[in-house]
């Protein structure tokens, strides 16, 4: 099967979620990756590590920022050009906005939030996460072309492959596609992106105020983790909305989720129920979050967290 994987870069590097998407594709067929905008050829060649044999690169500077319409158009052109049966992307803020358009352009059947490799024993069936992580649906993709947007940790990351050949892709861009302008971008630099993170440390109202976030950040830094927060914390503007984890915020799927001073309302749990392991630290032993946790500590965050950070520093040294 011929597979195209749309990959995204962040600060010049291929995102880990895109490397997972390549790994997913390599498990079912021959992978050509597609990168848009200016990125170094050396970096793109490393897509081979994860199983891509070739990378198509539409290097036009007009594609440097993620514009929804032109991206959808270029991806559809690339699917056509390499006669791809399947398009795979990692689920992301950008991919979510694009793939519906690509599906209409190409007539493909589309499934997002896919959590495992397809079952091809009878048709083409993927397991996707539904009801905000509370269940799965086995969904049959009933068109010749298929598009799959995968969740984090849908497959193990494949490593140790070769070097991919990078080829220029001459996309047919028309001015009419560029009717939208991005006038400003605000982005935290150097931070681990929340949806990409293998470890997430989140704080809730138990932290008492934004001025106390240092202990969350120290723990996160020690673990190479991203920081998150509960809805009340984001509603009160203690932390920005892009850190809000939960039903109406970001849904995360890290290997380890550490919740500090978060009671565990069902809407928060909906955002974290795909985590492999959950640690809850809360001074209220009745906090409902403990029922969803693997490990729990009843204690005051201001007392426990500095000690935990120190112990981890020693253990990871």
């Amino acid at each position, binding site marked *: 099967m011929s597979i195209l994987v749309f990959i995204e870069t962040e600060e010049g590097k291929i995102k880990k979620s895109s490397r997972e998407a390549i790994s997913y594709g390599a498990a079912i067929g021959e992978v050509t990756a597609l990168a848009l905008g200016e990125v170094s050829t050396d970096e793109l060649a490393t897509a081979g590590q994860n199983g891509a044999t070739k990378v198509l690169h539409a290097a036009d500077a007009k594609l440097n920022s993620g514009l929804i319409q032109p991206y959808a158009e270029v991806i559809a052109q690339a699917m056509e050009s390499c006669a791809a049966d399947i398009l795979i992307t990692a689920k992301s803020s950008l991919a979510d906005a694009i793939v519906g358009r690509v599906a209409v352009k190409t007539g*493909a059947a589309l499934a997002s939030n896919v959590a495992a490799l397809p079952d091809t024993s009878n048709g083409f069936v993927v397991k996707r996460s539904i009801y905000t992580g509370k269940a799965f649906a086995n969904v049959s993709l009933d068109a010749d072309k298929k598009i799959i947007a995968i969740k984090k940790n849908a497959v193990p990351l494949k490593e140790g492959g070769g070097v991919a050949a990078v080829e220029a892709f001459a996309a047919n861009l028309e001015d009419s596609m560029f009717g939208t302008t991005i006038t400003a971008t605000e982005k935290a630099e150097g931070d681990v992106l929340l949806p990409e993170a293998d470890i997430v440390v989140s704080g809730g109202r138990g932290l008492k105020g934004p001025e106390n976030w240092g202990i969350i950040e120290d723990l996160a830094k020690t673990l190479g983790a991203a920081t998150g927060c509960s809805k009340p914390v984001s509603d009160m503007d203690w932390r920005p909305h892009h850190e809000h984890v939960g039903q109406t915020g970001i849904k995360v799927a890290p290997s380890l989720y550490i919740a500090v001073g978060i009671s565990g309302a069902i809407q928060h749990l909906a955002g974290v129920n795909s985590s492999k*392991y959950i640690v809850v630290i809360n001074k209220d032993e009745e906090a409902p979050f403990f029922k969803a946790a*693997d490990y729990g500590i009843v204690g005051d965050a201001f007392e426990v967290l500095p000690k935990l950070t120190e112990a981890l520093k020693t253990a990871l040294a």
Partner: protein
Amino acid sequence: MNILVCITHVPDTTSRIAFTENDTQFDKNGVQFIIGPYDDYALARAVELRDATAGKLTVLNVGEADTEPTIRKALAIGADEAVRVNAFPSDSFFVANQIAAVAKEGNYDLILMGRESIDFNGGMVHGMVGELLGLPSFSPVMKMDIDGGNATLSREIEGGKETLEVSLPFVAGCQEPIAEWKIPNMRGIMSARSKPLNVIEPTDNTVKTSVSAYVLPDTKGAVKMIEKDNVAALVDLLKNEAKVL
């Protein structure tokens, strides 16, 4: 301004999820249905924009007759009229086709919906509708200001947000904090009963996906509690049992 808001009829966020008929049907027993929380944000912003421009606000739901109380709630919140496409929303492409067909008739300046439904969480319909109509589409939109034929949008990206300048019409998938949820007042509830709710049949029955079975996740084991003075024990468990460090 003429606004179309598409709403889903979904289980309340606190619902227990279960399946019947050999895991092929959602078990509606005891489940409270609501307007999708993201759709509710889109609706709230649409009410504000309609009020500011003396326009018209239509809500659209693709669903069977049991969704009508949810549609009436949207009318009580402030929509002027409603359309229900009489069909089960089985597939995102099918739903997008119905929305596009209604939108083509209505000459809308704005087509809003939630960033995703909270039952199937696909988040794909806004893009499909945009493509079917040949309009730009944006998601997740967390701020929307309209000035005549132009709009300034704030779209959430990973680790931040971007500001976009676009011209109307367009399609947007919305999320907080685009507006505060609105709670219907008594006058709204009374007037909702007499507002028009037109039921139409689907125009195109193409589907591209089908569900063969639903599966519940494995249940979690019991939590291991660790004494607060023994953080070293937690570090040991994370390292040697969970193997996540």
